[in-house]
């Protein structure tokens, strides 16, 4: 046992993006950090702990991927600072685990030499050996070890057996750590990097015993997915299928959840005294039930996104969208943060760290909240279910079509806003695109299940905390004090009455306005809030129905459409606003984003309401 050391040994994982560092990290530490098959998934430094076989406590540091030590983007700087010990109050790591994708040895070896030149104790983890072997590549590990002068450990991060080689050797490696001091990173200019590449290529020639062409599956699939004509059609089809699926596959489980909550509601109403019954039924059950019903849709949406991320298709989508993005003045890399924002804008805004130019990054952050995040799903679904008939147009579900149109509205407004921003406040040259397209990989069942479960858990936890407390708080505010005019006499009604005149021009009634206020916390909260408000409001007839049936009688079609338009834009999410504040480190930019989004929301809702009014007479 070597537990007697006064501090934990620190191991830092470093290497090119998408070489499996986070997968290895999760495997060793039991962590559950997000992994996917595209470069730039990890944008933060993350630490975990484990014990070696010999019992030494080790702190493992997972870092964003880097191609070199220049540290041009925020995520790269995090990595470079960590391994060079430039973080204040921190010693440099005791051992670097340099990751190299065995299938790309020839192309990436020079970055290993650059890292090695730092002079820190290091081992090379030759990851994805299984894939290299499957492709028919043979590498002479011993020769590689001799040529680069540090231990080389073959690995397959995704499997326990694939990580064993490092685990078994770690104690020996840690015992014989050489005492070295960090030398400054090589200053990289055209000459030094060319020399590194030349050295790396000649090492590669010695150690690669047999090499085949590129992965044939990837070549074949790219022939289809990146085909100039077919590619964009397939991308549109995949997105379209995703939104259709969210609609048509979720119907049955949603109906089940709905009837379950209706029964619970009925039971809770029987409870005496009446006040408790109202609290449980109108506050808790109506509030929670109106949000939890959307769980099946959330599962389907995230299932699709996870599959796209894990398979390697995500960066192909970025490729296909690049020219469109460029014309909007956005970086091609911006597509991945924006696509992540379909799940949630918060990780999307963080993912913008991979963008080198500060202007591009700011522009991306500013428009990320326009992407239709999963929290809008409950809002959209609720209104669509109430006001759009469940008919089919040709082979397409009409409700799914409206949902698709709302997503498109988000995407196009993001492109337009980005274009305007780039012409005005974030003027400057567009940054180049330079991105590795990873080989296609079959998603791992366990990773998929874990990723999906994490999303479900986040949704449930939010339902259990924010939404739950909002529903209860609102029940109280909307129930007291009692008066003749129902909800209007309550505290919530008083607040709502103040705001009502502002929202009347866009067709929102008092109940909607009351629900919008707690809805600032998160978008789906508005649904729970309306569940509670309308449950309290409702007469016996309405109580029997679900929230969407209540809305059918309480709202007009123009109001409903106006509400949808409002939610395409409105920045009703505290976490997003807080994240923008953190990542821009600027109150002005944060206020600007909130301001322009509310302004757009109001204008869009106003136009929608009045156009719809004109059509419906």
């Amino acid at each position, binding site marked *: 046992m070597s537990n007697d050391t006064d501090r934990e040994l620190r191991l830092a994982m470093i290497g090119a993006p998408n070489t499996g560092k986070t997968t290895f990290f999760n495997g060793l530490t039991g962590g559950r950090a997000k992994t996917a098959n595209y470069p730039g998934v990890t944008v933060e430094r993350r630490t975990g702990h484990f014990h070696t076989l010999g019992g030494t406590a080790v702190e493992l540091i997972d870092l964003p991927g880097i191609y070199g030590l220049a540290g041009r983007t925020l995520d790269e700087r995090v990595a470079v600072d960590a391994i060079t010990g430039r973080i204040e109050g921190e010693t440099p790591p005791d051992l670097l685990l340099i990751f190299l994708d065995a299938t790309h040895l020839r192309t990436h070896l020079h970055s290993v030499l650059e890292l090695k030149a730092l002079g820190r104790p290091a081992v090379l983890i030759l990851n994805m050996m299984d894939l290299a072997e499957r492709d028919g590549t043979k590498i002479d590990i011993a020769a590689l070890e001799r040529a680069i002068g540090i231990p080389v450990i073959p690995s397959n991060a995704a499997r326990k057996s694939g990580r064993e080689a490092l685990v078994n050797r770690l104690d020996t490696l840690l015992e014989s750590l050489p005492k070295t001091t960090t030398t400054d990173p090589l200053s990289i200019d055209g000459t030094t*990097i060319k020399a590194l590449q030349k050295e790396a*290529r000649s090492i590669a020639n010695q150690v690669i015993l047999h090499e085949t062409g590129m992965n044939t599956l990837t070549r074949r699939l*790219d022939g289809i997915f990146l*085909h100039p004509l077919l590619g964009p059609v397939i991308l549109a089809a995949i997105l379209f299928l995703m939104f259709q699926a969210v609609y048509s596959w979720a119907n049955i489980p949603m109906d089940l959840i709905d009837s379950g909550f209706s029964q619970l509601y009925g039971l809770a109403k029987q409870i005496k005294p009446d006040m408790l019954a109202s609290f449980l039924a109108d506050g808790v059950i109506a509030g929670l039930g109106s949000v939890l019903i959307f769980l099946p849709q959330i599962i389907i949406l995230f299932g699709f996104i996870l599959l796209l991320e894990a398979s390697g298709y995500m960066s192909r989508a970025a490729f296909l969208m690049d020219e469109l993005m460029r014309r909007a003045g956005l970086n091609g890399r911006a597509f991945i943060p924006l696509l992540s924002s379909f799940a949630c804008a918060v990780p999307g805004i963080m993912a913008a760290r991979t963008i080198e130019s500060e202007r591009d990054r700011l522009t991306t952050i500013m428009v990320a909240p326009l992407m239709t995040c999963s929290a809008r799903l409950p809002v959209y679904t609720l209104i669509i279910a109430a006001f759009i008939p469940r008919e089919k147009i040709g082979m397409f579900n009409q409700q799914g079509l409206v949902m698709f149109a709302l997503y498109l509205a988000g995407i196009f407004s993001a492109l337009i806003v980005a274009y305007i921003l780039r012409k005005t406040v974030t003027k400057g040259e567009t940054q180049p695109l330079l991105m590795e397209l990873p080989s296609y990989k079959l998603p791992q069942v366990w990773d998929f299940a874990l990723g999906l479960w994490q999303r479900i858990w986040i949704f449930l936890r939010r339902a259990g905390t924010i939404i739950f407390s909002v529903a209860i708080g609102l029940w109280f505010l909307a129930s007291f004090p009692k008066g003749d005019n129902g909800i209007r006499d309550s505290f919530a009604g008083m607040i709502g009455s103040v705001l009502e005149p502002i929202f009347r021009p866009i067709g929102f009634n008092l109940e909607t306005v009351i629900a919008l206020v707690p809805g600032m916390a998160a978008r789906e909260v508005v649904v729970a809030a309306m569940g509670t408000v309308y449950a309290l409001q409702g007469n016996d007839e309405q109580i029997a129905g679900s929230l969407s049936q209540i809305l059918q009688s309480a709202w007009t079609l123009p109001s409903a459409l106006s509400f949808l338009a409002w939610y395409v834009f409105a920045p009703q999410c505290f976490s997003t606003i807080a994240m923008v504040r953190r990542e821009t480190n600027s109150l002005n930019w944060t206020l600007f984003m909130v301001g322009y989004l509310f302004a757009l929301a109001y204008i869009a809702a106003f136009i929608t309401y009045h156009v719809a009014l004109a059509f419906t007479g």
Partner: protein
Amino acid sequence: MGLDTGVRRYDGYKLRNYSDSNRNLVEAPAAGLSPLRRPVTGRSCVITEMPVANGSHLCFTDFMSTKRRKLNELKRHEAGRVCGFAAHNDAMVIKLREIGFAEGDEVEVLGRGLIGGTPISVRLNQTVIALRTREAGLVEVDLTT
């Protein structure tokens, strides 16, 4: 770049395929560099040698080959070897090198975007890289197809 040392193989290159910037054919024996090291049309050329899988690849700068292209000029499925960069110390060239482009590397254009043929997906050895035409224009390639 050590042209005077040792015996090398030249990766099947037929040096007589090269011509100078005035499109004058340069006669040179397939294995022997002496004719090329003489000044060609009044200028001397720089010959860089990069190791490749089965020997060495010679990069001729400063005079044009009929098979010399910029990477953005390659059509789908055309392949070649990187033989240099448009600028030596340009920040973008350093980035291209960092992601893996180097003299002697095999490149092949796998696909191009619908609008304006951009972006381009390029096979670089066994890796696939996406870049826009503008950046691809910095990479000089000798066609092998």
